[in-house]
């Protein structure tokens, strides 16, 4: 018997329900508004009163309206067909919804249940299997999509029968397993999992030891992110968070990209699903959309579903990770999610923490970031989720609860600077404040030694030193004046400008400069550091300025040219000439 209840209070999307039976924290219920069933989630229970957050507008709701509790938490539906989909925060398929406007209480199935998939068995009859073990495989486009033993099964099961190779729908039984109690259980190609619970199904989570290439120089060269690592991008509005995220989604060396548009602009999502089908994955040549899943809960969609959207995205990521995939999860923006938490906490009249955010904000954020990572699967293979979230600090001030809490949880910090954005120095990632903790990992240093060249990290450290030194010199010049400082200050400043213009700045909208492979990044860094290693003799600071501007101009032309092309080499020779007759 399902627990039912009646509405006793309404403030915006927080509804109080008097219940007639047991309810669980985070349990899902449906509120009946003149026949329209609206989904809601229990967020607090007090006596026989449950407070629920409704994932829809509560307009027209009244005291006494009926509520039916479901006995399960908010779940994601997992199975073949997730790729290339556009879901809302509750995993409704936006493409199959009718009408231009979102209708209240309209929920659509995440997966196509009629589609036939080519199934090939992997597990053998009699084999012992545990949760997340691979039973079979279907081709989801290019991707070998593993059909796994459901994550929710506890203990060791025995494969009693498995379907032969052939075409099946996701709801067809593809295996019968015998559970530890000797009962037979049917397994289909789809399973459900509560989004707020981390998916297990792996043996261990080692420290990340590989670098994920993104084609963005200021990340790969200066502060690389590890495969299975975490990072965050805080920045005031207008500093290029979105452009940077899109560049990562387009270029990162991952099998699957999951983008959670959480409380952001709808037009940005439109941009993704207009452009991604046309764009090619630079690593495989396939359409970008084929490796992308969009979870879209834009700022005007119900606030409560915003919170759900990041969890839904993470759960889909964990599902693909368990298949041995390299997943990149991008969430834009985690601040909107935190604000959704604040709105609810506020309506629940909880005692507020800093800036009105709930006191457990920091714990919630750390918990979420902890679900990313590189894992070793039961069968010895590996998979990973690399997570990068953006943060939108109020007033651009990084001393606010969301940024501070995230800083504790994420290992890479890509701080966007208003000052750089004002000067149109994009990407506006601040080279001095930003960091990647992974550069301190011996595993990563070793990896870069073998992947790029021995001693690479020392070069990176040196580059950062030159940038910092240049910044100091610039401040001195500003205080003492061009003539008030020794010539070497100008030289130091301009060397850092050379790095800024040639390495840090990158034109995301340029076909060639937009994506810079590691090999090319190494070439350019060596070139630029080579110039920085020289000492020059200038008669006056204006000569220094003009000279370096000339060098910068040539290097930028190189950045705009096809790597190693005739044009590229023409500029390279021009640069060498310039350096020789200095």
């Amino acid at each position, binding site marked *: 018997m399902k627990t039912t209840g009646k509405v006793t209070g309404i403030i915006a999307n927080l509804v109080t329900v008097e219940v007639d039976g047991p309810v669980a924290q985070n349990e899902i219920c449906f509120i009946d508004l003149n026949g329209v069933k609206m989904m809601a989630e229990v967020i607090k229970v007090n006596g026989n009163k449950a407070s629920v957050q409704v994932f829809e507008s509560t307009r027209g709701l009244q005291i006494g309206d009926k509520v039916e509790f479901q006995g399960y938490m908010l779940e994601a539906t997992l199975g073949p067909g997730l790729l290339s989909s*556009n879901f809302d925060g509750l995993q409704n398929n936006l493409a199959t919804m009718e009408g231009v406007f979102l209708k209240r209480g309209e929920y659509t199935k995440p997966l196509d249940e009629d589609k036939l998939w080519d199934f090939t068995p992997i597990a053998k009859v009699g084999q012992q299997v545990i949760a997340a073990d691979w039973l079979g495989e279907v081709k989801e486009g290019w991707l070998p999509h593993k059909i796994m033993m459901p994550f929710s099964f506890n203990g060791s099961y025995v494969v009693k029968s498995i379907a032969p190779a052939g075409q099946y729908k996701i709801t067809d039984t593809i295996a019968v397993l015998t559970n530890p109690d000797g009962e037979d259980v049917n397994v289909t190609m789809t399973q459900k999992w509560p989004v707020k619970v981390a998916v297990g199904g792996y043996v261990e989570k080692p420290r990340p030891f590989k670098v994920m290439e993104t084609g963005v120089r200021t990340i790969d060269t200066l502060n690389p992110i590890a495969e299975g690592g975490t990072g965050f991008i805080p920045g005031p509005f*207008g500093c290029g968070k979105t452009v940077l995220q899109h560049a990562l989604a387009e270029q990162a060396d991952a099998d699957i990209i999951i983008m959670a548009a959480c409380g952001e602009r*709808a037009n940005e999502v439109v941009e993704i699903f207009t452009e991604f089908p046309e764009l090619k994955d630079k690593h495989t040549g396939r359409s970008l959309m084929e490796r992308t899943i969009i979870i879209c809960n834009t*700022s005007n969609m119900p606030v409560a579903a915003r919170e759900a959207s990041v969890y839904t995205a993470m759960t889909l990521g964990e599902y693909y990770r368990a298949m041995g995939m390299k997943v990149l999860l991008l969430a834009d923006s985690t601040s909107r999610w935190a604000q959704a938490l604040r709105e609810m906490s506020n309506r629940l009249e909880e005692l507020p923490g800093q800036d009105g955010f709930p006191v457990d904000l920091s714990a919630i954020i750390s918990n979420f970031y902890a679900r990313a990572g590189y894992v070793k699967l039961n069968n010895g293979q590996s998979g990973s989720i690399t997570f990068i979230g953006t943060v939108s600090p109020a*007033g651009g001030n990084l001393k606010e609860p969301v940024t501070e809490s995230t800083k504790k949880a994420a290992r890479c910090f890509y701080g966007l600077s208003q000052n750089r954005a004002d000067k149109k120095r994009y990407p506006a990632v601040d080279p001095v404040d930003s960091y990647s903790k992974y550069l301190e990992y011996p595993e990563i240093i070793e990896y870069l030694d073998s992947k790029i060249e021995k001693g690479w990290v020392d070069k990176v450290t040196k580059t950062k030193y030159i940038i910092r030194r240049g910044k100091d010199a610039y401040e001195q010049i500003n205080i003492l004046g*061009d003539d008030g400082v020794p010539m070497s200050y100008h030289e130091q400043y301009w060397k850092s400008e050379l790095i800024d213009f040639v390495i840090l700045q990158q034109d995301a909208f340029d076909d060639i400069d937009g994506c810079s492979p590691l090999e090319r990044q190494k070439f350019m860094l060596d070139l630029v550091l080579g110039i920085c290693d020289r000492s020059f003799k200038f008669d006056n600071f204006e000569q220094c300025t003009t000279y370096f*501007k000339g060098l910068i101009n040539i290097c930028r032309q190189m950045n705009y040219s096809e790597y190693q092309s005739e044009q590229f080499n023409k500029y390279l020779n021009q640069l060498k000439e310039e350096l020789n007759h200095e």
Partner: protein
Amino acid sequence: MSEKAFQRIYTKLTAITKATVTLEAQGVTNDELALVAGRLAQVVKIKDNAVTLQVFGGTEDIPTNAEVTFFGEPPSLNVSDDLAGRFFNAYGEPIDGGPAVEGEKRQIGGPSVNPYKRRQPSQLIPTGIAGIDLNNTLVSGQKIPFFADPDQPYNQVMSMVALRADVDKIILGGMGLTNDDYLFFKNQFESAGALNKIISFVNTTDQPPVERLLIPDMALTAAEYFAVDKNEKVLVLLTDMTLYADALSIVSNRMDQIPSKDSMPGSLYSDLAKIYEKAVQLPDGGSITIIAVTTLNDGDITHAIPDNTGYITEGQLFLRADPDSGKVIVDPFRSLSRLKQLVQNKKTREDHSAVMNTSVRLYADAANAKTKLENGFDLSDYDLRCLDYAKEYATRLLAIDVNIPIEEMLDTAWELFGKYFTKAETGLKEKLIEKYWKA
């Protein structure tokens, strides 16, 4: 709003604040309208039998035995083609002496467009103002505010942009407009001979502030009628959104909600997003473009209102007085149109984005030179050239009184590059320099 038969009438208020009243009532639905002592009010909270209403007209003079009548439905607007050319108050009642509008009754503040059904905005909206067209190109379906101090001529610029834009309907949502500004808009629209494509919803400063909360939804419900039902291109002007947000904070404050930054309600972001996100390019050709005004306190964009706005809108146009040229300019550093790359170089000449970036970068160099000058240092030859360039750039391109086609803006910029700089100093791609450089 006429009264209907069988309405529930109550006469016992249990609590009154400056913006809300509370009473015991049954069968009340969330968001529905009511009349409290003849003033319109809306249900904002229900707890058991206690119903809290926000009274749009303010609660001054309301007694505890005031008559409360519930309507059983949320606020609505009658929509039809007859809306065109009319002026309304916050409740959608005519204030121009004309008859009430007949038409389909639609609830305001309706649902959102399915993001998957949207189309990517791609139509340029030329304004003739180079600070906008050259540096911050507008696109139909975009939402963008002017950030301006109260002494800037933002309403003038906005009406100029509206009248130059090629759209089917212009809908004005005026919140806390002074009577003078209201008459200014009316006069502008009349003298442009554009009245028949304009619809206005106006709350002036002499009317109660809480009424303003209805204005954006009224304006956008009308906009959706023309954009969705009639496939028209609609431009919505919202001024001043800061006063709208102030009204939000008044209500939340009276409801004892815990304020977040700058005593604004914690839901400010969502509240503003619900309005701005109505901007849309629809699949059948209709579109809603929103140009708003957010007034600032001494240029402070870190205040919660402009800050939240900036995260929601697709850029912002920042007006400021430029002492060097003596003109009001569209600040190229703080202004941004996020959708500009959808039209630049595609709907405009191939050199557009490169010229834009370079001219702004050189303007930034001029700002550095100015700092040096102010600190009493000698300026280099390059610094001096930058300063001269900046003055001419501000006068000929950034000033809001510029009105030229985009090609001419680009040519002017090339002319300035050639006049003050060497080719290498501009850092432009050689391909473009070969084609456009003016010695």
